[in-house]
């Protein structure tokens, strides 16, 4: 009972914060939203800083793999050839998608369960 009272009071406090954002903050949020929508419309997601960072990291990993392959050939004794590794590392795989696969599986299951119940 006390827990419910606490969570209700906390919700009210957080709602109040949300409703009382300054006009400047609201304006900045609106601009941020518009920019996000515009950039998405223009397909500029690939040029965002985080994507650049990921691309740079990917290139770094690929370079390190090539160097490791050239310097330590004996370490490459697995079933996959070094060229296979390199292909995997340089392939234009959507890293976020790889990261999200498990989440999507869960989401699909949840939605299926939800529609079954209703």
């Amino acid at each position: 009972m006390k827990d419910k009272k606490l969570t209700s009071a906390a919700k009210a406090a957080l709602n109040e914060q949300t409703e009382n954002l300054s006009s400047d903050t609201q304006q900045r949020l609106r601009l941020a939203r518009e920019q996000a929508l515009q950039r998405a419309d223009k397909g500029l997601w690939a040029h965002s800083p985080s994507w650049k960072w990921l691309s740079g990291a990917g290139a770094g990993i690929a370079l390190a793999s090539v160097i490791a392959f050239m310097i330590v050939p004996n370490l490459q004794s697995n079933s996959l050839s070094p060229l296979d590794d390199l292909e995997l590392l340089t392939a234009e795989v959507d890293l976020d998608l790889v990261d999200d696969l498990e989440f999507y599986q869960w989401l699909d299951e949840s939605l299926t369960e939800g529609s079954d119940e209703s």
Partner: protein
Amino acid sequence: MKTLTDIEKFLIKNEKRAFVMARIATKDEDVALDLVQDTMLKLVSKYSKKPSAEWPPLFYRILQSRITDWYRRQGTQSRWRNWLGQSNNEEDEFNDSVLENQSNVNDLLPDESLQGFELNTILESAISELPVRQKQAFMLRAWQEFSTKETSAMMKCSEGSVKTHYSRAIATLKENLKDTPYKREFSQ
């Protein structure tokens, strides 16, 4: 007259809450705005064609990931500064362990001024001082009213962990409200 798309309506409905969540997590308005914008951009760019029922869990999952990444980056930068001999004691403490550490709202609020604070102000401070994972669990479960299952997917942890973080958050909040005028209202 311009017609709002469904995704735009969704963003308008959720951007303020997302911002408050990010601001409470980072305690920095500019960082919070960047995180929310990045979240909106990713949702619109990658998932706008998904059914709209999937947007809320996706949106808040992206946001929580961005917040966690931000904490990790802070920790990494702190370690580099430490390694380069440019650290100070406060920054040394700021690493991944911050995700589990606890602090007390009374560290923020001077005792003598507590009586003058409104309940909402005290609660806001108490929530903002929760450890990151507790804060995430509390805001997603109590405020956004996501289920334990949904919250676990957003926080990328088990349902058991969500329950643990959430119950610890409640306990921490109660503990932090102990020395306030609202002690009796919320204690067992």
